[in-house]
């Protein structure tokens, strides 16, 4: 890994400079993570007195648990829906803003602020709008003969958290798509126009392919976001319910570990999650270089 | 003021890459020495070793009588002018000049006086309150010089300081640097890849090639008696023509070549030494065809092909001779204008 061409020589200063970050990393990251790995191989009895090594049985139990497998499938559906919805809307808005030169900054300002809204708050906002008794949207849906009650219907609960999670992520995706669009060389678009391509055709044949690195990068980031940062959205709106209809992997780690105090199972779940994050990070870093090429 | 002495200086990078392979050099107090060579020859590394920015793998470096191998740059009493100027972008010109003095604990009035003095000398007084980005390239170059000047160091080190300037400014700054150094008499070590800059600036030149010294001498010594084919082709423009002795022997008075030192198989002839009219001294005659004629104002360049040879050859003559492309030309070369070389070793023959 690179340094500067010439570097300082100092016996202890670099270690001192690194000490704060390394100390925090070791105490609050590496140590807890290794504890999670350790306790994923152990079982503690009901009173918390005795801990025994049980090998892979926690994993075996987690992976055989239909509740866990359902949560896995649900998380996948949730991730895909949020990613598609928020990226789709964001791309549409970014393409529009990229067309209006004069008012681009004005619209950007009006579109980016939800980034600063906490996931919990996003959840509360949509939960309020969809409130079965006084909410505005169930009222409107009633006209179409749809009876909205996400406290009863698992599907409706899923739709609610998807909308809330996607809403918050639009601003982020929008900014990256806009940056991507602005870096498409203008000469390419002009060349396509001279070749007689219509604006829609130009978009799909020239611009969109050039955006693919951005799109790919955002997909990874969005999946990461849905898996981990939507805890607040879910906790504020459905708390995993009705039943386990909106129980995602992270939410399940929390309920099993904090509420259910099943440390062994929760740890095994944590380790599986780490595996997923490592995979996502790896994919992201593998493809970052391609992204830079544009 | 101090001398700088390099004894067997070596730089070895990880993986056994030798950038500098043992350099001996004594720079006298007040002397202006130019390190010149193609890129990658180790000249910048050598300068940075003198500055203390690169560690010395082997050998001894003295500034004055002090061995400074392990001293920090700041303790070596040197000042450096960088190729990209390295001005602190967030500081005013005044503070750029004053920073080194402040760090050395100079008192405010003294700093003020030295900065003003240097600014006056370099004619940058009116820019003292500006930031570097508000200055032109030439002005930044002066500030960079000023930063070296205020310190009144034992030696100036210049790392290709003019290469970011346009051609006209480069000539102007070259003259100013020379005059400044004459006035201050500060020992200076100057790195460049531009042979013209080297010739015009240096009291002495050090021609480097592949981490080793090829030749040391005054510009005219080196021009008149290049020690190797490398120096011969590097110093002087257009480069010296190299002609096999065999080729000349078949078409000239052989006796003229008899007294060439033993081992000579190539002779170098400067473009200025090939004439269209015979000189009065003993000379060789070669036939050639004019391939391209290039008029460059006061002088002309003639690109010719020697008869029955592929050897591309350049001739420089003053004015514009009445020649046509495609014409056969007779070239006259005085015997004393031949530089004898041994192509196997690349060295000049006959000592």
């Amino acid at each position: 890994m690179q340094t500067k061409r010439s570097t300082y020589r100092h016996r202890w200063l670099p270690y001192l400079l690194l000490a704060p970050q390394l100390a925090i990393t070791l105490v609050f990251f590496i140590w807890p993570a290794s504890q999670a790995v350790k306790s994923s191989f152990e079982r503690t009895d009901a009173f918390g007195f005795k801990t025994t090594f049980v090998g892979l049985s926690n994993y075996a139990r987690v992976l055989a648990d239909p509740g866990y497998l359902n949560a896995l499938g649900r998380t996948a559906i949730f991730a895909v829906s949020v990613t598609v919805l928020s990226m789709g809307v964001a791309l549409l808005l970014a393409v529009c803003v990229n067309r209006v030169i004069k008012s681009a900054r004005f619209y950007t300002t009006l579109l980016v602020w939800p980034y600063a809204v906490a996931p919990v708050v996003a959840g509360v906002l949509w939960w309020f709008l969809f409130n079965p008794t006084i909410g505005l949207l169930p009222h409107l849906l009633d006209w179409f003969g749809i009876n909205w009650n996400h406290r009863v219907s698992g599907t409706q609960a899923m739709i609610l958290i998807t909308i809330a999670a996607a809403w918050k992520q639009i601003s982020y995706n929008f900014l990256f798509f806009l940056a991507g669009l602005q870096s498409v060389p203008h000469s390419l678009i002009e060349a396509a126009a001279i070749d007689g391509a219509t604006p829609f055709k130009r978009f799909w044949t020239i611009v969109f392919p050039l955006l693919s690195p951005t799109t790919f990068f955002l997909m990874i980031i969005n999946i990461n976001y849905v898996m981990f940062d939507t805890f607040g959205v879910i906790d504020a709106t459905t708390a995993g319910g009705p039943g386990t209809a909106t129980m995602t992997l992270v939410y399940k780690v929390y309920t099993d570990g904090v509420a259910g105090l099943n440390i062994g199972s929760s740890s095994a779940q944590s380790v599986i999650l780490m595996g997923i994050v490592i995979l996502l990070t790896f994919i992201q870093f593998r493809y970052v270089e391609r992204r830079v090429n544009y | 003021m101090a001398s700088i002495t390099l004894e067997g200086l070596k730089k070895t990078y990880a993986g056994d890459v030798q950038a500098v392979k043992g350099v001996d050099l004594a720079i006298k107090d007040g002397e202006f020495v130019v390190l010149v060579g193609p890129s990658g020859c180790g000249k910048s590394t050598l300068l940075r070793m003198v500055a203390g920015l690169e560690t010395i793998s082997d050998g001894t470096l003295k500034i004055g009588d002090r061995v400074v191998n392990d001293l920090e740059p700041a303790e070596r009493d040197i000042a450096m002018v960088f190729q990209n100027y390295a001005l602190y972008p967030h500081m005013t010109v005044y503070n750029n000049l004053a920073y080194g003095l402040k760090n050395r604990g100079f008192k405010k009035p003294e700093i003020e006086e030295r900065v003003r003095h240097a600014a006056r000398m370099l004619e940058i007084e009116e820019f003292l309150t500006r930031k570097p980005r508000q200055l032109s390239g030439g002005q930044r170059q002066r500030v960079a010089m000023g930063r070296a000047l205020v310190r009144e160091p034992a030696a100036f080190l210049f790392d290709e300081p003019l290469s970011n300037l346009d051609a006209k400014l480069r000539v102007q700054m070259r003259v100013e640097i020379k005059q400044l150094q004459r006035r201050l008499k500060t020992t200076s070590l100057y790195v460049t890849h531009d042979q013209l800059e080297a010739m015009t600036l240096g009291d002495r030149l050090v021609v480097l090639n592949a981490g080793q010294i090829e030749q040391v001498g005054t510009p005219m010594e080196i021009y008149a008696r290049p020690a190797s084919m490398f120096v011969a082709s590097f110093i002087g423009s257009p480069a010296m023509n190299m002609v096999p002795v065999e080729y000349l022997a078949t078409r000239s008075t052989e006796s003229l070549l008899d007294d060439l030192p033993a081992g000579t198989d190539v002779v170098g002839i400067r473009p200025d030494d090939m004439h269209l009219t015979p000189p009065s001294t003993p000379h060789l005659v070669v036939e050639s065809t004019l391939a391209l004629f290039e008029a460059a104002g006061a002088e002309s360049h003639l690109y010719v092909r020697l008869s029955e040879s592929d050897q591309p050859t350049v001739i420089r003559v003053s004015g514009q001779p009445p020649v046509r492309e495609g014409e056969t030309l007779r070239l006259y070369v005085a015997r004393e204008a031949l530089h004898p070389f041994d192509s196997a070793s690349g060295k000049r023959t006959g000592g």
Partner: protein
Amino acid sequence: MVENRRFLNVLTHLVLIIGVLVVAFPVYVAFIASTHEAGAFVRGVIPLTPGDHFWATYSQMLGSGWQVAGAPPVWLMLANSTIMALAIAFGKITISILSAFAIVYFRFRFRLLAFWIIFITLMLPVEVRIIPTYAVVANLGMLNSYAGLTLPLIASATATFLFRQFFMTVPEELMEASRVDGAGPMKFFKDILLPVSITNIAALFVIMFIYGWVQYLWPLLVTTQEDFYTIVLGIKRLMASSDRVPAWNLIMATVTLAMVPPVMVVLLMQKLFVKGLTETEK
């Protein structure tokens, strides 16, 4: 381009206006709700026009809070959120810039190892190590403290990488010139490197402030005393009690107040925010 431009332009603006409205709509409804009295929600549907209880609602929430729900006054929670967000932003930047400085400007043993340890934090978000991290914080006696709230969140590989990347683009000669000028490493850091990095620091500060402000899961775990509630956490507590007493106006006032500081930061420092966002995530 000869195609029907006017039609496209109108369509573009139409899409954008609808987009802006849809994005803003939930916030508008929440704000309107906060200007009504509690009784306005008893019958029918959420009102869509402002009420006249703006001052009453906000002065109550900012002042005494909503005692019944067991939540502290909003000003206290806002103060806690501000402290937490500032501490996280400041802490992250401090430790990251120092370690990036060490990694870029020094050569030393274990340099690569240090880099990898920092890199690993990327793969361990709080959410995957909830329980053991909680145990560590509890063992250190840092539950219900600002240290417990912030320290486990301030190690950031992202910020370290950003600074590393930026330092690599700072011309080599600046450091060399300062060395010749007699500045040691820390003097160079303070006099040259920090001033040169100031825009990057500010951009990162904006992003990290927001990161700290929106934290939820971690405060939920380590704070049990109301005195340490952050505003985001407070909202959840208010909601938990709202099944019994639906004081929507009070909840929505809190929601509005929770959004104001970070949204203002984004809007006022849009340029820095965009720079910070698009550059940190590369």
